[in-house]
């Protein structure tokens, strides 16, 4: 645990990728394989299910720190992270446990899950008493599932690749699915990650997908496109779908569906299960899962709002009615494997041509071929992009015709651009604030925004909350807003402060839908602050009418 805590400290102490890479290399070159296996798991974003209920953790921490409940709560509000709070409040232990990460996780932590509260109550303090403060915080973060340290999966991949003298892409390929809940890290699984290249590498993949190739945001005026991108004929242009990015893997008579988070989601989409028999073996499709209007013709763009897909994902069981009301399709746009061959090193247009032939040859009912858009020039495509909102898509995707299929957000083998439409925006008033987490701990950084319930000039109109947002401000602005919130607080409800409305922000969001759960009757997607409207008095903020007009 100490070595891993040391690594955490080093990673946390720097913002430089090189320094982080060095810290990772140092750790992996020393760590026993069984510890390294878990380190890769946690660093790459793996989280076991919550091991101990949060309530129980709090109770125990309060008991051991001998503080009144309210003071524990105040402390938590200042720190913004439960694991860190507890580690700061428990008595210091001068000596740390010498046991390794794997022993801690497998013998001490994982067995806690499902234990009766009395057993946990007895066990946890004994465990905590063996850890110095840094290891204790780490242990608590593993228990609460809040372990995060600003290392990307790609960086872990690079560190391992360097250590094993392998191509990073090979390691990335082997890492896919490593953090899935169904996989338990072991010395063996770690050694497989860093093993020398073998001849049967390809046949050992089972249901593994390929690392997803991700797009970059294109933010330039259309007039510059010719200079930046060359003519549109060099590009494959498609709609940017707003659904769940997925790979459909068909091998050895079996079907696997993986989401972009490399989670296995096969069971969530029974509509696609027929592909197990219709898709040929040794075939991997890349595309977007979308809710499609029931009974729409193949030619229609009948994508339904993301909110519907989200509702489906929220359900434990998928009833008949839900499946009938919100059926999904796969908009396929890439072919990564064909006849057992890895096609990622073939150019985009070649993969596309084969994908088209595939969709023609096989009756793949739930699979649609993501249509290509044609345009004489960029201005023409920009005009077509204007329809995005009414079609329910997020804009356009531009894929270099010669691009190979990269790993993550790489650009060295060709590039994918997402050319998104401008977000919706309204001017809204900040009415509640809450302190943030992580680097915003102690700062009032999470805000609730409201619009007026009636147009300007109406007597006695009031502000209706409609969205929460916490991103988009610079640190400097946030500091200023924090100071204003402290000065204009009207009431405090637990961690939330209501303030005298004085602050107006331009809020941007991607989608808008009716909602019964919100007081305003409206739910918005990905709200964030675009601009602090210092120039706008509160009276001139937008009203519900503005939002309703956007719904139409």
């Amino acid at each position, binding site marked *: 645990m100490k070595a891993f805590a040391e690594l955490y400290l080093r990673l946390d102490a720097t913002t430089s990728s090189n320094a982080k890479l060095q810290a990772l290399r140092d750790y992996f070159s020393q760590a026993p394989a069984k510890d390294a296996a878990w380190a890769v798991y946690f660093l790459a974003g793996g989280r076991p299910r919550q091991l101990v209920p949060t309530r129980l953790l709090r109770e125990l921490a309060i008991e051991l720190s001998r503080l009144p409940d309210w003071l524990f709560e*105040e402390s938590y509000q*200042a720190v913004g992270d439960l694991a860190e709070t507890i580690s700061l409040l428990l008595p210091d232990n001068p000596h740390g446990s010498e046991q390794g990460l794997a022993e801690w996780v497998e013998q001490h932590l994982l067995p806690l899950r499902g234990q009766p509260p009395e057993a946990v109550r007895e066990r946890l303090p004994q465990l905590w008493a063996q850890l110095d403060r840094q290891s204790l915080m780490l242990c608590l973060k593993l228990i609460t599932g809040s372990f995060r340290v600003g290392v990307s999966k790609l960086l872990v991949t690079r560190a391992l690749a360097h250590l094993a003298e392998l191509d990073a892409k090979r390691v990335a390929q082997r890492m896919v699915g490593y953090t899935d809940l169904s996989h338990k890290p072991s010395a063996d699984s770690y050694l497989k990650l860093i093993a020398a290249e073998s001849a049967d590498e390809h046949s050992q993949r089972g249901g593994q997908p390929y690392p997803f190739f991700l797009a970059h945001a294109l933010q330039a005026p259309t007039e510059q496109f010719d200079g930046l991108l060359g003519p549109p004929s060099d590009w494959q242009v498609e709609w940017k779908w707003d659904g769940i990015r997925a790979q459909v893997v068909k091998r050895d008579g079996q079907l696997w569906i993986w989401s972009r988070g490399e989670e296995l989601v096969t069971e969530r989409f029974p509509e696609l299960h027929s592909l197990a028999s219709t898709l040929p073996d040794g075939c991997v499709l890349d595309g977007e899962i979308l809710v499609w209007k029931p009974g729409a013709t193949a030619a229609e763009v009948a994508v339904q709002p993301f909110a519907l897909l989200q509702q489906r994902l929220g359900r434990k069981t998928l009833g008949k009615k839900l499946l009938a009301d919100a059926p999904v399709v796969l908009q396929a746009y890439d072919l990564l494997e064909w006849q057992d061959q890895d096609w990622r090193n073939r150019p985009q247009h070649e993969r596309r041509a084969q994908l088209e032939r595939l969709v023609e040859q096989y009756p793949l009912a739930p699979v649609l071929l993501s249509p290509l858009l044609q345009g004489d020039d960029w201005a023409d495509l920009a005009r077509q992009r204007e329809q995005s909102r009414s079609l329910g898509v997020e804009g356009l995707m531009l894929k270099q015709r010669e691009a190979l299929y990269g790993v993550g957000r790489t650009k060295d083998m060709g590039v994918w651009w997402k050319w998104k439409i401008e977000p919706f925006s309204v001017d809204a008033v900040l009415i509640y604030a809450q302190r943030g987490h992580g680097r915003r701990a102690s700062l009032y950084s999470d805000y609730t925004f409201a619009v007026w319930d009636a147009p300007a000039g109406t007597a006695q109109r009031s502000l209706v909350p409609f969205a929460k947002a916490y991103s988009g401000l610079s640190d400097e602005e946030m500091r200023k807003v924090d100071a204003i919130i402290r000065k204009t607080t009207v009431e405090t409800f637990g961690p939330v402060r209501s303030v005298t409305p004085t602050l107006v922000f331009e809020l941007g969001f991607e989608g808008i839908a009716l909602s019964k759960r919100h007081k305003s009757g409206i739910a918005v997607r990905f709200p964030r602050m675009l601009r602090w409207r210092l120039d706008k008095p509160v009276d001139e903020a937008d009203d519900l009418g503005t939002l309703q007009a956007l719904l139409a």
Partner: protein
Amino acid sequence: MDLVIARPEGLYCPPGDFYIDPWRPVERAVITHGHGDHARTGNARYLTAEPGAGVLRSRLGADINLQTLAYGERLDHHGVTLSLHPAGHVLGSAQVRLEYQGEVWVASGDYKVEPDATCAPFEPVRCHTFITESTFGLPIYRWPPQAVIFEQINSWWRANRDQGKASVLFCYAFGKAQRILHGLDAGIGPILVHGAVEPLNRVYRDAGVALPETHYAGDFIRSDPLLRQAIVLAPPSAGGSSWMKRFGDYSDAFASGWMRLRGTRRRRGVDRGFVLSDHADWPGLLWAIEQTRAERVMVTHGSVNVLVRYLSERGLDARGFVTEYGDEDDASAEQASP
């Protein structure tokens, strides 16, 4: 009778007709210590502890009308007996003891209970009413012993030097900087300071505090190899300024009690955070309050509500005082200039 009340100008002693650390200009000001939020310009007369005279003059002007008292020395004013007692915060920092008709009040200003070599250590003073600060008034704030922190700073410096990197340590120019200088291992390499730090070093040296040799960082050119071995003490406001460019690829750190929290450290955007404060931590506050045996506690700047509630639940008569005092680490951005 209340010997101290909160007025718009500052904390006021009615029978003595003077203010303690006023934030608006008044006739008579007793100054607990020289930090900008406690010692302001524009007062007609100043009274402060004798070791703090140099600091006050260097910050407020050599020509201020200043009277000083040795620690423990008594002064009678309109029937109020006033004396100053070490607060352990910075050079010359004092608690103000007021006695009037058998009633004793002590105003702490800012204080720290762990002794250090750059100022007289905190001395508990028995009183009926204690006015305490509460900057770090939450139980999450517990300081490691300063020796541990100095060891951390020195090893960070040593490691950077071995990699050929300058070590830039941001800290408040008055108090914190000198405390760190005292704890540095001068054998590691040259010690450089920012222009805001050196005048205060002079004041400390004049007061007999031993500090290692320091050089003005501005005297070095970028290509000087000494820079890659040096530690540089600079006020936080120097961060991100063009002044920093001369250090090339440096490692930076911030020394403050706020560094106890991961979030505040990350917000600072520095490589390292050293938990070093000139204020009392939570156990320190509780210990100091207990030592005074006060039955009544007035809580100023910091976690006022928390400390008031906690003390009330322990049977003390605790109340909050509204003041305009801040905390030098947070205010430093506005104050220090090169």
